[in-house]
């Protein structure tokens, strides 16, 4: 941190909050709130005279509230920049600090929050993680039993700059504990709180155990664990060292901690799984290795940055394997535990990677985007004719569409990721997607259903998940019906109702509407738009009397080749169960309905026409200045 502050090309904005992020990759406009410190940074020399003079004491959050701090304070001795700060919630306005500061005149009670706007090229989000509060786990008695402490409290206790100058003491009587237990997986790997593994707690327990053992070799330390996870380089050897040092590892998750109310001694009852027997041990002190959880304001940050969150609340990366550092929004990157629980080596590696990903943007004049971007046909957009609409703007997961009533909607090309959600939703077919125009997709549908359409299963697959699932079914040699005809679009959001009507008009036997699972969607909320539409279509087809099973919605990930094969085979079985005469009669009966619905499509162009349209769109794009 000190090095970063000294580097002339790095500006550290401490005590500053991000209020708003607008714009797009290379051209972000970021609004910052620089909070008032009531101490002028250009004058304060960090002498601490104000803190010495201040009569107000409040709990020090940085010390896990184990020690007090003054209302004039710095959070820790290595604070960067070394400028004192007056906590206005605690200040009693005695102005003793002003007198203590004297001729420096650094304290200024008239300071106010400053709003700053900055032009930013790329953003790296490194907001870290929060700590699970074990109070709701009443079985462990945190908050009730003074000698049950959390890992972070232990961290401050054994830190030489901490509240006790590195002396580990029992909170109940300030004695040095001789028997200490560490409990792992407190609030993690627990479906009642956080189902995930917090990643670093095993190593953290071993580290703390070894550290305490080094300080007091006579200390008896036991670690309760479900599994010890030491997957990285040198970790297993570290675990070996801990056992060599005499630290005991007990496999078994404690069910309960009880306390002797007089001596505040603690008793842990757990099954020792390797013994197959329930054991109870007495301890002076217990440390709970609590789960890592997202920051309390992670939801707020996610809406400010317009980046999605994975289940559990962490920021969601673009792709868990191939793009683990990028956010779904171009130009925003993640470093460290804000994206998921991570230990120090992994966070440092991700930080370096994020910096190099960001510098790629800062050092280039142009930015390549997917070629499948959306384009508005201004002559068809009803907004240009003065009608209120704005459906496309609401659907877009990236905020890439500018809609103002009275002006035809416009796509901010640099922000568009090409999911085609707006194209699928636009009721006037006024938006099209390059390389997936209605004409192009319709041409494919027509070709796929050219021969014996009633025997075909037309499968709409999204590029990222269900197409991958079908691919995997093939490469894994999972057999599925040869009557399946797959059609790829970028996202289930692009699966326009018109395309499905057209497929039924042509007499398709069955239609599969498939895409990613909601949490896997590569276009943030594209799947949500797709799923809503599918539910609407399902209802409508049921009303129209389409045999159940002829339209099916399934969310299939790229890893679910077996599911893809199973779904197709089930659909084939459903189709086989309908007698051919009845099926043909049903198709004939529905044709006029479908034709009626398709009149909404301004025109259903043929293949030749499709090519002309593509040329038109490409020319449109060329004539527009598309630059960053």
């Amino acid at each position, binding site marked *: 941190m000190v090095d970063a502050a000294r580097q002339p090309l790095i500006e550290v904005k401490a005590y500053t909050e991000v209020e708003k992020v607008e714009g797009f990759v290379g051209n972000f406009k970021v609004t910052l709130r620089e909070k008032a410190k009531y101490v002028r940074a250009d004058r304060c020399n960090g002498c601490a005279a104000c803190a010495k003079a201040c009569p107000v004491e409040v709990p020090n959050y940085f010390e896990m509230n184990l020690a007090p701090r003054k209302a004039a304070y710095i959070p820790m001795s290595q604070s960067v920049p070394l400028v004192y700060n007056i906590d206005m919630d605690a200040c009693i306005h005695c102005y003793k600090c002003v007198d203590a500061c004297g001729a420096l005149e650094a304290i200024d009670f008239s300071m106010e929050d400053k709003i700053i706007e900055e032009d930013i090229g790329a953003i790296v989000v490194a907001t870290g993680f929060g700590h699970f509060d074990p109070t709701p786990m009443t*079985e462990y008695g945190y908050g009730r039993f003074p000698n049950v402490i959390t890992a972070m409290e232990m961290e401050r206790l054994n830190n030489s700059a901490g509240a006790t100058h590195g002396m580990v003491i029992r909170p109940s009587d300030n004695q040095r504990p001789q028997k200490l237990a560490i409990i792992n997986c407190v609030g993690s790997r627990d479906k*009642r709180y956080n189902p995930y593994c917090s990643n670093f707690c095993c190593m953290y327990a071993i580290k703390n155990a070894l550290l305490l053992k080094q300080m007091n070799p006579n200390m008896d330390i036991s670690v309760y664990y*479900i*599994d010890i996870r030491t997957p990285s380089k040198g970790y297993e050897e570290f675990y070996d060292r801990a056992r060599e040092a005499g630290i005991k590892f007990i496999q*078994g*998750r404690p*069910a309960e901690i009880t306390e002797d109310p007089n001596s505040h001694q603690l008793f842990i009852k*757990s*099954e020792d*799984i390797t013994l197959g027997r329930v054991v109870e041990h007495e301890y002076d002190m217990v440390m709970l290795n609590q789960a890592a959880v997202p920051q309390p304001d992670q939801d707020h940050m996610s809406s400010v940055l317009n980046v999605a969150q994975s289940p559990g609340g962490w920021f969601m990366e673009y792709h868990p394997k191939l793009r683990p550092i990028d956010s779904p929004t171009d130009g925003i990157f993640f470093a460290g535990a804000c994206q998921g629980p991570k230990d120090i080596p992994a966070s440092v590696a991700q930080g370096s990677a994020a910096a190099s990903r960001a510098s790629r943007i800062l050092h280039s004049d142009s930015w390549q985007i997917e070629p499948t971007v959306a384009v508005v046909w201004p002559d068809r957009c009803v907004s240009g004719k003065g009608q209120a609409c704005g459906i496309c703007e609401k659907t877009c997961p990236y905020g890439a569409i500018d809609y103002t009533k009275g002006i035809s909607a416009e796509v901010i090309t640099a922000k568009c990721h090409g999911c085609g959600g707006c194209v699928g939703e636009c009721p006037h077919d006024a938006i099209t997607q390059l390389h997936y125009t209605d004409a192009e997709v319709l041409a494919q549908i027509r070709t796929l259903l050219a021969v014996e359409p009633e025997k075909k299963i037309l499968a709409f697959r999204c590029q990222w998940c269900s197409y991958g699932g079908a691919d995997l079914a093939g490469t894994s040699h999972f057999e599925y019906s040869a009557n399946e005809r797959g059609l790829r679009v970028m996202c289930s959001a692009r699966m326009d109702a018109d395309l499905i009507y057209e497929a039924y008009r042509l007499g398709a036997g069955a239609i599969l509407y498939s895409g990613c699972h909601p949490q896997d969607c590569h276009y943030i909320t594209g799947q949500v738009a797709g799923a809503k539409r599918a539910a609407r279509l399902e209802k409508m087809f049921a009303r129209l009397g389409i045999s159940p099973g002829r339209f099916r919605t399934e969310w299939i990930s790229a890893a679910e080749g077996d599911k893809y094969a199973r779904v197709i085979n089930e659909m084939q079985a459903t189709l086989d169960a309908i007698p051919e005469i009845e099926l043909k009669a049903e198709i004939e009966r529905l044709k006029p309905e479908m034709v009626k619905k398709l009149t909404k499509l301004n025109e259903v162009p043929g293949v030749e026409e499709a090519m002309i349209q593509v040329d038109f769109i490409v020319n449109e794009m060329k004539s527009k200045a598309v630059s960053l």
Partner: protein
Amino acid sequence: MNLPVNTNFAEQVKAIPGAEKLMMCFSCGTCTSKCMIQEKLEPNYNPRRLIRETVFNFEETAFTDETTWLCTACDLCYPACPQKIHISAVITAVKQLAFEQGRQNPNQTAKVVEATCVACGLCESVCPYQAIKLVEKKVPFRGMITVASVDQGKCMACGMCTAACRSDSIRLNQDFNDNEILGSLWGWLESEAA
């Protein structure tokens, strides 16, 4: 040593409602250390081990395990389980399969004296395990009549029904009938008096 295996056992247990999450167990032992029966009654009692036996299809071992027969379904373990497995439901499922194969509950259960039962339904209403139902049954010398009937799989031999019965028609089969209790009570009183 190879334990006898019924390759379908885990699937059969899983198919019984409540036991669906059987395979989610990662053997943390919270249930065992939470269990009152383990603490107070039977040190060898171990729900974690029973789940493991079930997962690995050791049917015979599961059926003879004391865990199967001693669980009172108090559900102390259920809210403590980090995988949200309804452990008592798994145990009940194992028990159910054991009965389907004609096994008997090795522990004592309440028995109805059908010759004197008047089907008043008192026992049915007091049973905390809903183990007693009134059924229509052919009873020797009494013909087709309604009598109380005890579900062996559910009965925990608590004796509530025995205490409630006004015609002494439902009894615990071994040590805890009225005469035994009265006998020990008299014995105790006499020894106190002496």
